[in-house]
């Protein structure tokens, strides 16, 4: 029993943090035209093998596990990484031919993230991507997007372009497996934990330098105590995330329940912490130049993906827990 990343896991997390900060750091979102994952960025991510962390080696992946997958996406969350990253990683797990899988893993072709919404598909990600993946709790479909008519809609979330498609595009591959949903739910929970952590880091740093009434704001209990509460949400969500990731890796009988709990806690931690971060910054917190709104908007999207509050709680209520 060990619920802290071991040295190998910690190394992966550190490498992911360095790479994502350098290549997809949050600062990019303050420049125009930086939504989504460009073909060039996709090739860079794919070239380093980040799309296939949990995929077996014989399928071209790294042969690691849900744990490394979660650790990578936690770092992606801190940078408000585009959801293309997740779509691409999930598509690599679809039952497609070896050539297509290789193109997905290496980033030669792109995959957007599709969400079914009342007979339409909402697709987040690079509009030029060749494919889009839609994942349901019991299965997934990979759609061919070439030539499909899509209407661009304004996206609240700076990291992702949004398009809406009426009707269903042609299907490239389908899978009747819960595994993809599990990887998607885990990755979104992990990204939300990363957001909750980044929000606390921002306000804790600001509280050490910003002065009001002649004192650093971090010396006021009106600031200190909400910051402490932010840490409590993080510790709870992160401990449960690690538990869930490890339960999935070990095929624990209660893995899905642990994952639902992790997603719920991560939804809550990211939304509440990114909210508190804006408020405690004061006026600067509502400006576009600041990162505070990026974290909150990203949390609004991720908390709706792979299990929003009502759905995860309804799933969780009656699941029995094995020791």
């Amino acid at each position, binding site marked *: 029993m060990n619920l802290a990343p071991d040295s190998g896991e910690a190394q992966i997390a550190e490498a992911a943090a360095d790479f994502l900060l350098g290549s997809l750091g949050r600062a990019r979102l303050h420049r125009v035209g930086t939504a989504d994952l460009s073909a060039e960025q996709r090739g860079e991510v794919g070239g380093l093998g980040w799309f296939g962390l949990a995929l077996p080696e014989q399928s071209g992946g790294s042969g690691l596990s849900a744990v490394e997958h979660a650790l990578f996406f936690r770092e992606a969350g801190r940078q408000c990484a585009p959801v293309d990253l997740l779509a691409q990683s999930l598509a690599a797990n679809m039952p497609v031919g070896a050539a297509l899988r290789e193109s997905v893993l290496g980033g030669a072709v792109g995959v957007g993230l599709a969400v079914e919404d009342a007979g339409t598909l909402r697709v987040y990600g690079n509009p030029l991507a060749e494919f889009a993946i839609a994942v349901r709790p019991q299965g997934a479909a990979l759609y061919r997007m070439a030539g499909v008519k899509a209407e661009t809609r304004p996206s609240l979330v700076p990291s992702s372009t949004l398009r809406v498609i009426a009707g269903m595009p042609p299907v490239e591959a389908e899978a009747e497996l819960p595994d993809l949903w599990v990887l998607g739910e885990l990755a979104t929970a992990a990204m939300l934990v990363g957001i909750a952590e980044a929000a606390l880091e921002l306000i804790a740093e600001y509280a050490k330098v910003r002065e009001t009434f002649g004192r650093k704001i*971090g010396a006021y209990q009106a600031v200190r105590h909400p910051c402490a509460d932010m840490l409590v949400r993080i510790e709870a969500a992160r*401990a449960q995330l690690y538990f869930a990731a490890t339960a999935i890796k070990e095929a624990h009988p209660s893995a899905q329940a642990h994952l639902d709990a992790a997603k719920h806690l991560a939804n809550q931690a990211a939304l509440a912490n990114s909210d508190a971060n804006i408020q405690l910054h004061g006026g600067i917190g509502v400006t576009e130049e600041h990162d505070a709104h990026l974290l909150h908007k990203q949390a609004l999207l991720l908390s709706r993906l792979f299990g929003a509050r009502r759905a995860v709680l309804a799933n969780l209520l009656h699941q029995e827990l094995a020791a």
Partner: protein
Amino acid sequence: MDLRYSDADIAFRASARNWLSSNVPSHRRPAHGPEAARFDRDWQRKLFEHGWAGVAWPKEYGGLGLSGLQQVIWYEELARARAPHHINTTYVALMHAGPTLIARGTDAQKAFHLPRILSGESLWCQGFSEPGAGSDLAALTTRGVIEGDEIVVNGAKMWTTDARYADYQELLIRTEPGSERHKGLTWVICDMSLPGIEVKPVRTMMMDAHVNMVFYENVRIPLANVVGEVGKGWSTALATLSFERGLGFIGDQLELAERVERAIELAGKVRTETGKYAIEDESIAQRLAALKADTMAIRAMTLAEIAESDRTGVPGPNGSVMKLMVTATHKALSELAGDLLGWEFLEFDGDRGAHPWTYDYLWSWVFSIAGGTNEIQREIIADRLLNLPKAR
């Protein structure tokens, strides 16, 4: 990371479950008074005699010398078997006096007290807070004057749980005249039968008098009873508090999961004002599920913390994070139980066994105030974990 239990852990769980299945007292603990203390001592003696006392205490001090993880397993099995609640009159002895003596006591103190604590022969109470020193513990003024090989104590302590039944007290006093704040304090073992000690019960909103004021008038305590060094009592007190804030509530935190399951069962049996079963009400179902997620996280946090303290030996400031999480969950569960029970929730005579949900609702304030208020825990987090500029 790894969730698997070793063969030894699995065997330990099975043997604990088996023993508890036929040894948990069948009669309810008396609500108050010396008969409650007797019940607690009897249960502790039974655990001791059957080799279940001090699961994670070192073997050389009479414990089982097992890992922190096995201690977690033990508490999980206690909760599952609905064994007597671990916060009772033996709590201070087992959860802070014992660990403090193991960490800082002399050989003679350990040899005398530890076996008595484990067997339930000695009950302890805590003498830290005072009428003028609660959250600001370092403002304490109860003084001890060293005369020969004795310390003569005068002053008053406040909020001393179970002082009327305790044999000994962990007493924190000011022994250097004119010293201020954290300096000049001494942590001493006080025999509660000494002349000059007067205990006055304080009735609480829970319709009991588990807390007391303790007055000291020229109480003469042997210098040999000092734990740690004279004048360095703050350091010993911090060790005591770290046990309380770290794993001292481990039984409660693990029991919460069991209580949420009981609330889910209850919601399937009671009806709301609309006539529907409570569990069919979406807002209630969501609150129950959210509480279940919270208790799962508390367990994951506990297991992570246990791994940490198995490595370092002493719990760190993460205990403050845990206490905020646990007290908030406890309160939310108690409020929900109140909604489920409707009018029945308002029947109460102070008996925890007869009215557990109402008792726990009232207890939620004790929980978030005792052992350092939640506000003090947030200050500790801001200072020690977030390194924010000092407020004080």
